[in-house]
């Protein structure tokens, strides 16, 4: 059963929180490493997926589970699902990654290198909140403002515009109020502008 994701017992082990939110029992992981072996970004990660699971398994050793929340890994995970697909214990690791991201945001433990990724996600959702749909042009501008990467893809935009892929005006949902209400009711954790 899922409960309100923003409420959890203080002092509970992170593994318990993960179990409560995702139904995944990290104790079942026996560290075979198949997830890390198949992960497309394992080489880029500070802790490949199997190690994230092991950090959570060290539930009562101070500091270890927190390393998972502070990891770069959780932001690099692409949710490509290959780990879950091949896991012999059928552990939904991508779901665990989601839960860790939420917790990392809530506790303000986001890895510094994840700044750009986070900025992109926030710009994306901002766009959806305003128009109900993704306004790619608007999002890119927003992302540039958030990330400070003003020059990135500068040459891409005119080409996209030229081939008709980039619209200057957003497409909109008619009932935008309904969307706003959804966003209002789903308060995102750590929703503060950096």
């Amino acid at each position, binding site marked *: 059963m899922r409960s309100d994701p923003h409420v959890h017992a203080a002092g509970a082990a992170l593994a318990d929180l993960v179990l409560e939110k995702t139904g995944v029992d990290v104790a079942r992981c026996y560290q075979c490493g198949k997830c890390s072996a198949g992960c497309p970004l394992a080489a880029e990660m500070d802790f490949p997926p199997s190690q994230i699971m092991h950090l959570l398994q060290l539930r009562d050793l101070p500091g270890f589970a927190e390393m998972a929340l502070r990891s770069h890994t959780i932001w690099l995970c*692409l*949710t490509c699902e*290959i780990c879950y*697909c091949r896991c012999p214990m059928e552990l939904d690791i991508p779901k665990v990654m989601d839960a860790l*991201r939420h917790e990392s945001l809530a506790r303000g433990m986001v890895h510094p290198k994840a700044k750009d*990724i986070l900025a992109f996600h926030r710009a994306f959702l901002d766009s959806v909140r305003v128009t109900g749909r993704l306004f790619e042009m608007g999002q890119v501008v927003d992302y540039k403002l958030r990330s400070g990467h003003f020059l990135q893809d500068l040459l891409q935009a005119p080409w996209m515009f030229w081939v008709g*892929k980039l619209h200057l005006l957003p497409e909109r949902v*008619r009932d935008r109020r309904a969307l706003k*209400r959804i966003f209002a009711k789903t308060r995102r954790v750590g929703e503060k502008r950096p």
Partner: protein
Amino acid sequence: MKTGFYPGCSMKGSAREYSESLLAVAGALGRTLPEVPDWNCCGATAAHNLDPDLALALPARILAAAENVGMEEVLVPCAACYSRLKVTRHELLEDEQLRQRISGLVEADYRGSTEVLNILEWLSRVPELEKHVKKPFQRKVACYYGCLLVRPAGIVKFDRPEDPQTMDLLMRKLGAEPIDWAFKTECCGAGFSVSRTDLVAKLSGHILEDAVSRGAEAMIVACPMCHLNLDMRRPNIEKRAGKKISIPVIYITQALGLAMGLPAKKLGLHRHKVAVKISAANAAAKDI
């Protein structure tokens, strides 16, 4: 069977040609695809990365809208949107309490009757597709499924997660020769297109290199995100690889359109970053 259509945001923008080619093909096959009324964005990667409720609420609103107008199924050509809708449907139907809570959030009740369909499922259902083929697509192609069409296998329940065959079968019907290759379901870098272009260049590069080394003449895709990474990010890929990679990336609907003899312009082939220098029939191979 009333089938609705959820285009998703990218098909209105960066993946416009996917939408154009789909509608052109559907028209030629005599099918109408009414859009889900007043649809919104599915939330994509951003929503589930940042907010679990939003990640379910946005797709739930779409599903409820489709259900309300009696659509028994919704065609979701974008594999990323497909995944979000399919996963949401699964989670809501697994947990009644959750379903009620999310229904409350979106102020609309999704009861679970509307099914979610990906483009390959939809095309596979066309009876005697080969009869519509006028110009066989006589090319060696690499059918690229990416992640989200086949995974998580327990939820999407579509084809086998390792070495899937549905797209290969479809392309064979169009006259193409699908190659046996190793990166059918490897990740292209997905949502990192903008934020970690370096990683996309690496992952997408591996995919293209394997396809090219096995003699593929075109990549066939069914996902705007894959297309974006494999096509529009080609300069970054080439820079990282230190060589030119000129294999075009074609949506399956475009390939079908070409085989059915529809004009290239109608299929949006001119909108690609990597020029599509092949047409369907080998004999008529001309630059477009």
